């Protein structure tokens, strides 16, 4: 088996883990647990990231013997992580129908003195607002949006991870962006009230 990408030591570890070597698997878990947890946090939200990450590692252990090295290990791991997170999200649907607002979806100004968007991202309330708004984006659109704008993947990479054509990946990111903006706008209008529902389910054909 040849594994594209990563150092020789990494590749060796993965080959050993795929043959059932638990020591090697433990090293893989320790080296990549931050990556899995980070992606899970972005797709399922901070509250459910730990459970989703555990499910990812259970699946990785069950399937690593089938890993043939046809793609980079990181792509394979992304795929398992995204699928486990989507399954977790589907179990916990809280979306309701909602239509596009009449007024254009402007964001309320970031609560910082200099109004610099990047520094406002470090504000705890703003961070919560972002994660809460992501909750209202349809799960596959949310995953594509996270992979594009938080993980920095190309559309081709997103398509490979999500097992869809590149055009579909582009469409999902685009819809995810629009839905998130609408959700942020609605949150800004309502303040810190109860979440109201899916930003796109009712409005998007």
């Amino acid at each position, binding site marked *: 088996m040849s594994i594209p990408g990563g150092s020789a030591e990494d590749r060796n570890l993965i080959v050993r883990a795929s043959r059932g070597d638990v020591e090697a698997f433990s090293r893989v878990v*320790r080296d990549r647990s*931050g990556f899995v947890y*980070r992606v899970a946090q*972005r797709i399922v939200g901070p509250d459910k990231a*730990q459970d989703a990450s555990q499910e990812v590692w259970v699946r990785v252990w069950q399937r690593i013997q089938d890993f043939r090295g046809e793609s980079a290990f990181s792509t394979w791991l992304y795929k398992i992580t995204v699928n486990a997170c989507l399954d977790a999200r589907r179990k916990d649907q809280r979306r309701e129908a909602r239509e596009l607002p009449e007024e254009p979806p402007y964001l309320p100004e970031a609560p910082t003195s200099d109004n610099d*968007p990047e520094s406002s*991202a470090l504000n705890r309330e703003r961070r919560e607002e972002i994660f809460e708004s992501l909750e209202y984006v349809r799960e596959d659109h949310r995953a594509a949006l996270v992979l594009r704008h938080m993980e920095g993947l190309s559309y081709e990479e997103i398509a490979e991870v999500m097992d869809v054509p590149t055009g579909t990946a582009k469409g999902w990111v685009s819809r995810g962006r629009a839905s998130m903006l609408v959700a942020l706008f609605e949150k800004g209008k309502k303040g810190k009230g109860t979440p109201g529902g899916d930003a796109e389910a009712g409005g998007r054909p």
Partner: protein
Amino acid sequence: MPSVESERWEFLERVGAYAAGELEGAEAREVERLMLETEDNRRLAESYAQMLALLSALGQETPEAPDAMVNYAIRRAYVSATLRRADSIMRGLAIDYLGALVHYLGLRPSERR
């Protein structure tokens, strides 16, 4: 014929693609023209840019995985590997035992002749 709602979503998505720097040539110029037309369109593009900057800044953060999660994953793999080995030993023993029983009872086709 596309509905008004559908057209509004498409417009929203187009401005989003522009804010993300994904439009080129005539498509980009068309959105720029629309932005010059109304203050609403300009603010929409600014809101997108602000949202994308927030997502990108959050994307730079690297949260640590909780130790409990890492330990759970490793412990589970050890237990699973032990069970796999035990299963393999038990299967081996069962096959040996069955083979001995067949031999003892003289049930092997070659021995019955």
